[in-house]
């Protein structure tokens, strides 16, 4: 397509490095988050996969479906997910500032995760530009936030967001690995 840069390898490599770095910290973030929410979240082995947020697309996808996606679709899904994640991480950060005001470690980890998600978004946009793909417009994925959500609901919400952040990061690493193989530097 016209105007496309010659080599997308560099933005892919940068995005891949960032995704790998994020991947190292996602489980720590989830662990820190759960430890601050009390039982049952802080119970050992806590997991509630059935908890989902309608505003956040789940990362889980069948391998066949994922493999059948083309680069543009894959990047577009990831782009949409991380856009939603940045907004949700902001929301969870606000919630936790309310619920756990005396936990600066948790708050700083949530803030760092949000900034990295934003960074990855920027890298993905660069890749899409390099590949000549259309960048999807930024949309308000959160929509009308239920501000009246109860404390327990907000704890659950945060759990889903930090969990999905990890899942989406894992998926992004796979996406970018595939792209990296396709566009070697």
């Amino acid at each position: 397509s016209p105007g496309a840069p010659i080599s997308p390898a560099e933005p892919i490599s940068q995005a891949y490095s960032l995704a790998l770095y994020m991947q190292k910290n996602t489980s720590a973030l989830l662990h820190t988050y759960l430890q601050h929410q009390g039982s049952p979240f802080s119970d050992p082995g806590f997991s509630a996969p059935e908890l989902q947020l309608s505003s956040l697309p789940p990362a889980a996808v069948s391998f066949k479906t994922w493999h059948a996606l083309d680069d543009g679709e894959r990047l577009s899904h990831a782009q949409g997910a991380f856009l939603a994640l940045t907004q949700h991480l902001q929301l969870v950060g606000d919630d936790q500032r309310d619920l756990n005001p005396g936990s600066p470690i948790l708050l700083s980890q949530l803030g760092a995760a949000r900034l990295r998600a934003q960074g990855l978004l920027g890298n993905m946009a660069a890749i899409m530009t390099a590949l000549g793909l259309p960048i999807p417009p930024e949309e308000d994925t959160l929509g009308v936030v239920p501000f009246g959500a109860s404390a327990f609901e907000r704890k659950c919400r945060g759990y889903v967001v930090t969990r999905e952040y990890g899942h989406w990061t894992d998926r992004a690493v796979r996406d970018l690995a595939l792209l990296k193989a396709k566009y070697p530097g």
Partner: protein
Amino acid sequence: MALFSVSKTAFLLAFLSLRTYQSEVLSEPLPWAPESLKVSVNTTSQSLHLQWTVHNLAHHQEFRMVFQIEISRIKTSNVIWVENYTTTVKWNQVLHWSWESKLPLECAKHFIRMRSAVDAAKTPGPRVWSSWSSWEEADVQNSLGQDLLFVFPKDKLVEEGSNVTICYVSKSHQNNISCYLEGVRMQGEQLDPNVSVFNLNHVAFIRETGTNIYCKPGQGDGIKGTVLFVSKVLQEPKDFSCETQDLMTLNCTWDPGSDTGLLKQLSQSYTLFESFSGKKILCKHKSWCLWQVAPESQDMYNFTLTAENYLRKRSVHLLFHLTHRVHPMAPFNVLFKNVNATSATMTWKVHAIGKYYTLLCQVELYGEGKVTQHNVSVKVDGVHLFSGLEPDTEYLAQVRCANGDHFWKWSEWTHQNFTTVEAAPSEAPDVWRNVKIVQGRCVVTLFWKPLSKLQAHGKILFYNIVIEYLDRTSGSEVLSIPAPASGTELPLNQCSSQIRITASNSVGTSPASVLVVSREPGNEEVEEERVKGTEDGFPLSWNPQPRHVTGYLVEWCEQPRDPPCDLQWKNLGPNVTSTVVSSDAFRPGVRYNFRIYGISTERVPCLLARKTGYSQELAPSDNPQVVMTNLTSHSFTLSWKNYSTESQPSFIQGYHVYLKSKAGRCHSGSEKAVLSDDAVCCKYKIDNPEQKTFVVENLQPESFYEFLVTPYTSVGEGPHDAFAKVTTPDEYSPTLIRILLPTVFCILLIMITCYLKSQWMKEKCYPDIPDPYKSSVLSLIKSKENPHLTIMNIKDCVPDSIEVLNKQEGTRKSFTETESTKPTYLYLLPTEKRYSSPGPCICFENFTYNQAASDSASCGHVPAPPKAPPSQLGLLTSPENLLKALEKNYMNSLGEIPAGETSLNYVSQLASPMSGDMSNLPKNPPEPALCSEYKMQMAIPLGLASPPSSGSSSLSSITLLDEGERYH
């Protein structure tokens, strides 16, 4: 049961209709029934809110009415609440009433109805009710949403210890839902098929971020929960108190107790309300608040402190008069003026409180371990005079103040130090002396004790000594000894003198101590008495002096064993005749000597008594060094003259002499004693400590004895350790010795004489054989210079050999191999090649005629030096000795000679070298012609002479010359 309830309802309805009928009949019909009843639900506060109006109320009409409200749960028949709400009703008024449900309103439907009556409290008679309104339903379950499971109430805030009801609502018809409080499963009761209720009693505070309660269905479909925020109970503020420092500002303080702050609730706030002025302030701090006092406008204050949080309010009250709560600030500017030796003036300032108030100030003075306290009234400036102070002393003064009219609290202390100035010493130094006569001169050593701080009144700089000689011709001497000396030694020009000692500091001089020294040593013949020390010291007593004395003095040495004995003394009054001398320096087992002097009015000391004793006697640790003398077969004498009874750790009462013998019999004068090691011995007792010899008698000759001398004291004997051993001689040996000794002496004398006169003896008995080389004949021969004369030259010799036959050896080696370790043949001439090359030569010399040996024969090396001992030559006269000497010489020159039987054979140089055993003879057989001068040779059997090895020792030839051949 159902039948009963139906009949009951029917009865009630019948009764109500009858009442209605009655009221309709008896008066006008009841017009004020409630209408337009609306019910709203506030789920946050779990309350139902009712609002209604009253029908047909006339304009400006006002009634006091009772509304009876019924609330049912789940179904209308299940009435859970009936309440009569009484209020005044006006025309067109909308009435409100709220009811808080313990059960979350989402958990069940509620039904509400009401009826009204005019409050008939003033008018007697039964109350006439209106008809019931219709049931209004309050149901929030329909608006819950799409989820299948809900837990209520949401984010409830309760106080610790309260009871809470939790419920879940399930829409999935699952009934195996389990609910947990912080991970612990809760047991609930089913309200209806979809709703279960859990009653939590006395909920506890777990954490500020709330307590999680959650439910989850048996399989799948996530968890639902709620957070219960449990607050600590707000406490009443404690110790609420207000005070002012300056009548301008009131500082109110209190103990707030525990913080009730939560995520859902801010910490409690405090407000201060003053009822007289009606002012109210919100306190910025949790435990104190400042209240500005309007100047001179208000004396009384009535404060209410209110603590408040989301759930509760608590108040405390305080009523007081402002001037009764004055807590002044600490005084300042504390200064001292006119500080002298015994007084000082302290001044200070206080912060003024209003115009008309006086302060009461408390002044404390610390010094010399004492505290004095004074109260002073102060307006602005405080002044206090401290008197009766000690000179040169540091004092600490401090001052604090309180409201003098109405005491409330003391201010903080303000401290300041000051030091009084010095004054002249108040007391004369305590002085004592020791007088010695050295080379006819009196030498007095003065000792004095340092003045105590209270006596010195400052730093003592020096001690002044004035010596006044009593004959008034020698004038006086003045000395100054700088402090901190505690004594001095003064040689006096003459003994009779008066010594005055004063101590001086920077301000002045103390009174004088006066001592009088006289040549008379005093009553030195006073007998020494023993004194027994106790734990408290030595109790000393003496007879009162008939003469007038100004006092008594006891002196002693604290370190009697050391040369500077640390002289101590104690002054006592004239009426005292006993004292106890105690000191930490007194040690057990040390003898202390005390002298008691009476001091006359002329200040002359006179020795009254001498005492000696131990603070505690110890058993002797050592026994005397005993010397044994006069040992005979029946007795010996023991003596220990060097043993000092004075320097022992206790008073010596005598000695025990122990004697151990095999016989075990004890003679008279001794007794049997068993020692600690069960040994039995005889014990002799000596009662006199000064008897230091003892004769042990009645002993057996040639017997073994052991003895020990040990002192005994009141606290025991010396150690029984080292017994000395002795064996008595036999009876005759002394006689024998009397004969033997002179005999031995005589022999010795003769031997010494012989030795001293040995030279003379030798010359007399066997004189020296003259040395041919030193003979005067030699010079005569030399002068003739005749080469053919006399002694044979070695070059001219045809060497012969002496064959040494070692019979143990089978092989024989040539002479050239004599350097090998085991020569069989002895090479009689030097081993150097220069000698072997011309052929070694041997000369046999007849010693009998050796005197005539000539120097012309070079082979005649009889290396007997002139200084050879004559005795050696003498010994060589024996043939056997000759051989021995020869062997010895060969051993010296060749290192070794093979062991075994050895004999010498003479081999002529003229014999054939090839003959017989001579096959291994020297390779260079000597030329026969060379020894032309050899006239005749003779073999000698074994009789060989050996030359001494001094000088040219390498030359080992033996020269044996026939006398006839040498003088040809």
